[in-house]
């Protein structure tokens, strides 16, 4: 391999590390109007009267919009391929407000200070309803969160809005109770995970302008420009051709920007006023008024026979959709496909949840997308089972682990695991952590115990049979190349990875390839970067587009050099004949292709979607220190081995893994979601929502095993999401091993661990 596996620097490093204009806010035109959102103080209410007269008189205020002013077409903001499996249950502004912080009015002014001055002058009279603040009481609650008659599903997802059910899913294979009765060991437990916040460092922000053709141009910090274009087109009732969406460099996404957030407001304002406008969320809004992970309360039963075979996995959850159903179904279903297949010797499985509307901030997409949530109870329960059986928890896992070529009860018919060095990854993680030669629990001093815990995880690579990516690669008139993609580099380095794949295919050096991305006027359709799709799906489209271009280039060389193209060798920069008698560079060729009657401008174009979503695999082993007097858990070391197929860029894959593990540590130990009894999210800033700092995480050790995935290009799978999945259960197991304390609610803050220590 010439380029794959190399640790190239990210192609945008120089710009983003220099302070040059690169992000959305840096490009806001100076004459753009500022938009501020007046928000609901109530968890559930109807606006019965709204008076904007006094506010409109504030100097500098240009307009104020309420639910009376916006189009009445419902939509979803979930960034998913059409037809979205999320309910169309939103308006730009709705007369009903469904959580504390929901949008009530848009104040548009010449600057922020004028808008802020006007905001308190808007007088709103609410009819306040009893909110639904506990997902366990949501179904058939007297308050119906979505009572509107025009809520629309594109296809049945088991929803029943009149009962506060956003969607529901149940997958049962085999006879659960009969198989459980045959088991020698059955463990049963409840586990709870919170609606954690993605917390990208750059909050949500968007500006909109009108171009010289009277079209709407939206520049936004988004992972899904094409989905945004479609959402805005629907909401405003205009065609996609009237809209251009551009994504500059963005300050992180983690799924939060796979859901529309701020885009609709400047789009609406600018389209209405035909003037540029912008909105920048502050941290409070970003944490309080966007979308989060879904909180789930799990009940799990795992049964095994004494030969160590896991016969039954039964997982039933109640899931909190929050105020809207964005990603409500698919985060849950994705969780099944990325957890249960790990242990495929089962005779019966169940995976089931009602995903209910509540008056909380809506759930959405967060790295791991349901898999993180599902693997939390599953991997904790497997560890518990190993304890109950008195066997090594890795041995138990190995005994039940799916093998290449095998299927699983939770797989789709005909689906098998096509690749994966699962056992090799586990072996490597054991060696890194010295698992076989050390106790899983040890005394550090009179106050502290040490412990080791393990968890396994799958994820997917793209969304099978649904998402497909298109890539165009052109040879420019000087013989260098440009690649056009609608995928979105959000810092993970996907542009760099795609450049490496393109250069690998064409053979040229990296400095001959420029990747241009995420501008809907320019690049071909791509759903965007989510679902761990870009390196696998867009990467494969990249290879195919480059193959096509290479073929065309050789044809042209052959024509001009008057030789059979099949006799030519090509390294991306030049061709030569076997005998060396004829040679020509792309630099010499390209100008000939863009002039004269024989001009033939070359580009390769490919669209590719996969019939499968090959799972990357990860083993995580956590080493923690537990303070017996306080319950405080300190992460000491984390050993991570990932099989993401071919590693495209070693450094970037390593940093993805480190970042995912640490984000998982945050979910495991520090990041708390607390609502007040009135439904106010109290942890809506970084003072109270504690992201892990560099002193909170211990040392992260990363390595890879590289299987070869046959379905896409170059054996590649994915890495973006799988890396967040092991932290919670591995740390839970480490605490359990260290002290015997079993914590079943996230995050595992000292008070919870202390209580578990008392209860053991």
């Amino acid at each position, binding site marked *: 391999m010439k380029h794959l596996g190399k640790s190239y620097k990210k192609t945008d490093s120089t710009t983003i590390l220099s302070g040059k204009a690169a992000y959305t806010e840096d490009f806001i035109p100076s004459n753009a109007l500022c938009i501020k959102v007046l928000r609901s103080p109530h968890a559930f209410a109807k606006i019965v009267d709204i008076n904007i007269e006094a506010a409109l008189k504030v100097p500098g205020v240009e307009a104020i919009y309420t639910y009376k002013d916006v189009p009445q077409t419902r939509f979803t903001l979930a960034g998913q391929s059409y037809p979205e499996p999320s309910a169309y249950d939103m308006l730009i502004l709705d007369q009903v407000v469904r959580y504390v912080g929901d949008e009530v009015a848009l104040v548009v002014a010449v600057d922020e200070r004028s808008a802020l001055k006007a905001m308190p002058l808007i007088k709103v009279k609410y009819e306040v309803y009893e909110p639904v603040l506990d997902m366990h009481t949501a179904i058939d609650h007297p308050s119906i969160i979505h009572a509107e008659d025009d809520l629309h599903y594109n296809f049945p997802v088991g929803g029943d809005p009149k009962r506060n059910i956003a969607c529901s899913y149940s997958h049962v294979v085999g006879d659960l109770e009969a198989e459980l009765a045959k088991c020698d060991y059955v463990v049963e437990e409840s586990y709870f995970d919170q609606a954690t916040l993605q917390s990208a*460092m750059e909050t949500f922000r968007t500006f909109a302008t009108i171009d010289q053709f009277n079209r709407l141009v939206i520049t936004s910090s988004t992972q899904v420009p094409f989905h945004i274009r479609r959402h805005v087109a629907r909401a405003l009732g205009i065609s996609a051709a009237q809209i251009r969406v551009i994504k500059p460099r963005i300050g992180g996404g983690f799924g939060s920007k796979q859901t529309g957030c701020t885009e609709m407001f400047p789009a609406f304002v600018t389209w209405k006023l035909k003037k540029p406008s912008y909105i920048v969320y502050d941290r409070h809004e970003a944490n309080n008024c966007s979308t989060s992970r879904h909180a789930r309360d799990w009940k799990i039963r795992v049964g095994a026979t004494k030969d160590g075979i896991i016969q039954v996995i039964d997982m039933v959850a109640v899931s909190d959709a929050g105020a809207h159903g964005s990603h409500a179904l698919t985060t849950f279903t994705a969780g099944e496909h990325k957890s249960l297949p790990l242990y495929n010797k089962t005779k019966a499985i169940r995976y089931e949840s009602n995903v209910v509307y509540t008056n909380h901030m809506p759930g959405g997409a967060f790295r791991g997308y349901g898999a993180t949530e599902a693997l939390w109870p599953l991997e904790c329960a497997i560890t518990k089972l190993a304890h109950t059986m008195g066997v090594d928890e890795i041995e138990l896992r190995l005994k039940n682990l799916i093998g290449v070529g095998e299927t699983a009860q939770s797989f789709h018919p005909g689906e098998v695991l096509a690749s994966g060095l699962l056992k090799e990854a586990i072996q490597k993680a054991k060696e890194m952590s010295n698992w076989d030669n050390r106790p899983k629990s040890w005394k550090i001093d009179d106050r502290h115990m040490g412990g080791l815990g393990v968890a396994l995880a799958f994820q997917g690579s793209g969304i099978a049979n649904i998402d497909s990516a298109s890539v165009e690669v052109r040879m420019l008139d000087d013989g260098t190349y440009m690649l056009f993609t609608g995928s979105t580099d959000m810092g993970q380095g996907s542009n760099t990875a795609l450049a490496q794949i393109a250069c690998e295919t064409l053979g040229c050096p990296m400095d001959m390839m420029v990747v241009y991305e995420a501008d809907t006027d320019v690049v071909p359709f791509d759903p965007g970067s989510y679902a761990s799709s870009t390196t696998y799906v867009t990467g494969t489209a990249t290879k195919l587009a480059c193959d096509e271009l290479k073929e065309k280039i050789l044809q042209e060389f052959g024509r001009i050099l008057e030789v059979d193209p099949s006799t030519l060798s090509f390294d991306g920069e030049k061709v030569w004949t076997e005998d060396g008698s004829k040679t020509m560079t792309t630099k010499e060729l390209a100008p000939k292709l863009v002039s004269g009657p024989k001009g033939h401008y070359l580009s390769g174009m490919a669209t590719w979607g996969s019939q499968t979503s090959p799972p990357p695999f990860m083993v995580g082993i956590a080493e923690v220190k537990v303070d017996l007097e306080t319950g405080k858990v300190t992460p000491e070391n984390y050993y991570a081995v990932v099989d993401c197929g071919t590693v495209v860029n070693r450094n970037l894959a390593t940093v993805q893994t480190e970042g995912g593990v640490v*984000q998982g540590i945050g979910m495991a130990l520090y990041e708390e979601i607390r609502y007040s009894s009135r439904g106010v999210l109290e942890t809506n800033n970084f003072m109270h929502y504690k992201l892990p700092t560099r002193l909170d995480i211990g040392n992260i050790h990363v390595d890879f095993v590289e299987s070869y995935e046959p379905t896409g290009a170059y054996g590649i799978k994915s890495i973006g999401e799988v890396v967040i999945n092991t932290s919670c259960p591995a740390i839970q197991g480490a605490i359990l091993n260290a002290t015997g304390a079993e914590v079943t609610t996230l995050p595992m803050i000292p008070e919870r661990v202390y209580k578990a220590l008392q209860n053991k």
Partner: protein
Amino acid sequence: MEIMLQVNGVKRKVLIETDEMLLETLRNLGFYSVRCGCDTTNCGLCTVWVDGDPMLSCAYPTFRAVGHEITTLEGVAEEAAHLADCLAEEGADQCGYCTTGMMMSAIALSRKYPNATDEEIKAYLNNNLCRCTGYESHMRGIRKFLGGKTL
């Protein structure tokens, strides 16, 4: 109010709101390396130097900056480029949004404590949050940067 502000060695007259914070002033002047991440002094994205000490510009009233030397990443371009290189070689930039603020802390550290241990580096940078990297690659890059400095 109109004040005299010295940024990166250049004195200039600036028209500010009385309650304006340095973060807003600097961004208005086009110093895009200075960013807002939290409003609550937790994230460190807005880190600049006041008389050589790293401070949070989101909570530093601009009127107080009169008579003090303000330094942003743009003002230490050479060291910043070197550190940027060390970080990028590790893939430690990722989204880059928090990195410039962290770099201001790291460059201050390199000037004040060039022989800092790993634990001292972490403690010095603890006010700089990062959501992408998991911090390990920062350490690799900064070690390289500090090593290069002492050579």
